[in-house]
């Protein structure tokens, strides 16, 4: 029976159990990643966003909250068009950030 609404599954995050290795490695490789203020300019301009909900802001948040599946889904939608880099008020090289993330495995190691 569809009543037009449903209960959302719990989205509580236990920060003590979050595996932050990928995020920490990213900050090591692209230090600017830690300067993100989460303004969402990247999400607003993203070419891939209308198709897949891609957002660099959410990727960075997701990494720190352990939402790995969601992060991977968003990353694999990026078309690298570079608009997010152009609008970022912090001047973060988001393309480099995304490409670097794509090179990291689950343990935060760069694949060779």
């Amino acid at each position, binding site marked *: 029976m569809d009543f037009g609404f449903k209960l959302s599954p719990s989205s509580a995050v236990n920060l003590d159990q979050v595996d932050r290795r990928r995020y920490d490695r990213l900050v090591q490789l692209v230090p600017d990643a830690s300067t993100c203020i989460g303004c969402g300019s990247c999400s607003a301009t993203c*070419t891939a966003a209308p*198709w897949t909900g891609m957002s660099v802001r959410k990727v960075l948040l997701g990494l720190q909250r352990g939402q790995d599946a969601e992060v991977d889904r968003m990353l*694999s939608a*990026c078309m690298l068009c570079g*608009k997010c880099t152009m609008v970022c008020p912090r001047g973060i090289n988001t393309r*480099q950030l995304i490409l670097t993330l794509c090179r990291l495995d689950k343990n935060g190691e760069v694949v060779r």
Partner: protein
Amino acid sequence: MRERFASGFDPFVIPFLIGMVFVLSYCLVAMIRVVCQLPKADRKRFLLSLITPKYIWMNIRDIFLNCLIHVKLWKRNKVLGYMHSSIAFGWFMLIVLGHLEVMLFVPERIHLFYYPIFFNYFVAETEQTLQGALLMFLMDFFLLIVLSGILLAIIKRFASRIVGMRRTTRLSALDQVGLYSLWAIFPLRLLAESFTAHISGGSFMTIPANWLFRQFLGNDLHSLPTWWAYSIALCIFMCVLPFTRYMHIPAEMLLIPMRNAGIKIRHPRKGFALLEVYSCPSCGVCIDACPMSVRKANCQDATVYLNRMLRRGNERRIAEISDKCLLCGKCSAVCQVGVQGPELRVAQRERRKFALTPSYAGLNVQPLAEAVAGKGGVLYFAGCMTQLTPSIRRATASLLDKARLHWQLMDPDGGLCCGRPLMMAGRTEQARELIAKNVEIIRASGCDTLLLSCPICYKVFKEEYPLEGIRVVHHSVFFQELIAAGKLPVTREDGLRLVWHDPCELGRGCGIYEQPRQALATVGDVVEAGKHHAESICCGGSLGSLTLSFEQRQPMTQNALDNLTVANPDQIVTGCPLCLTTFVRLSDRPVRDLAEVLDSHC
């Protein structure tokens, strides 16, 4: 002429023979290796071209003009042109004339490798013959030409500014050995030939030198050691040649036929890429040309150093240099040998491994295709960058309406990326998926013309999209044609000084230089930037660079702006939304797109 020694041999030729055999066998093996590394289809194409008369003629002409005369270098810098062609062509003529002498006077010795090189040691003059005199004169003449080139080379090494180069490459240790042995060869040859000139005969240089030396050197004991020294200098040069920048001499002779046959880089390290790396003469012209090298930054990331690192196999530096480059293509435009710096870098990027590979196969473009389906006419694809600069989209739309054209917008609420940024990042396979999706939409529209206002899109649509039957056109060309056909009534504003910035992808990338200038000339006075056309300077905002930070790019943008405002224009006009956005941040005067300028005068 008669022979001095019945055996026709002296031990001093041994070093030369060792060097000669080594360098010839090394080059032969390397050549076979490069040809074998080509993909099968390319190899067949190349080998076929070697027996096609049209290509044979083209190859001979290009090798003669580029390797010996250095025509391209002459056009760029007369002093450097003379320096290179005097050494290359002079040396070539010395070898040819040496063989001619042997063939004329001692034909039975022609099979000996060393005879034409050391001819003057092995023969004695019997009576003055006309041919002998002429050949001797020519030998001395070309030796003088080579020596003048060597003198220039020495001056250039210690004061590169005199010959018009701001920066030159730092030589590796082996390069220095090669350089100094090359410098030593010809003065030693002059000395050696002078010491034996009273026996073998000589001409305007060797005979007076011989006379001079005889005034204070009492005997001939120094003659043989000088011939030994000459032979050893040749040996050292040839033995180090494969490991120095002088490898470009043999490599270029293979590069030219391969390029003429249309071979492209297919593997980052093998085949044609390897050949390009070895063809780099390390001249360093790309260092001054590179837009990244402004304020002496990033000088170590020019193409010449990429080639050097590729030869050394320094993976860390290769990755660093490849990822930093703006891919503006200026190094290729100024390269005398035609090393394709950007293509070489993209090939390295393609090699990179990723833990996560994007996929766009699941995107449903049906709604976009349906929106434009069957409407025909002109299809305008604004593209990602133009979505960020809506004024360009509005101006283009307005111009299309003013020209009363039947047109539609392909991506009114944002579309897919064209795929070029992915290609620049080395993700060619993924780019192909986007290309397939976009082609689906374009084909559904039934359009006859695809209009682009972004050169980044334009290049990839033109080169990579299977769009037979559809005209792919950049808006600068399209509007110029409309103006020329009288469909856009533009009004001229006298005294309005406009400078055109050639975007890398449009100019060097697609060869479009004149149409935008012609279009601009209808609304104002076009002035030129300091460096323009194929040598225009990248705005610094290029998507080509993966690692350059915002702060690192700013001096490049400022440098490009300084170059554009040399003639003090009122407005800077460009045809690329990315250049526009980059310039606007730092420019002291209005920066506008061509469409905006035309629309405001129409």
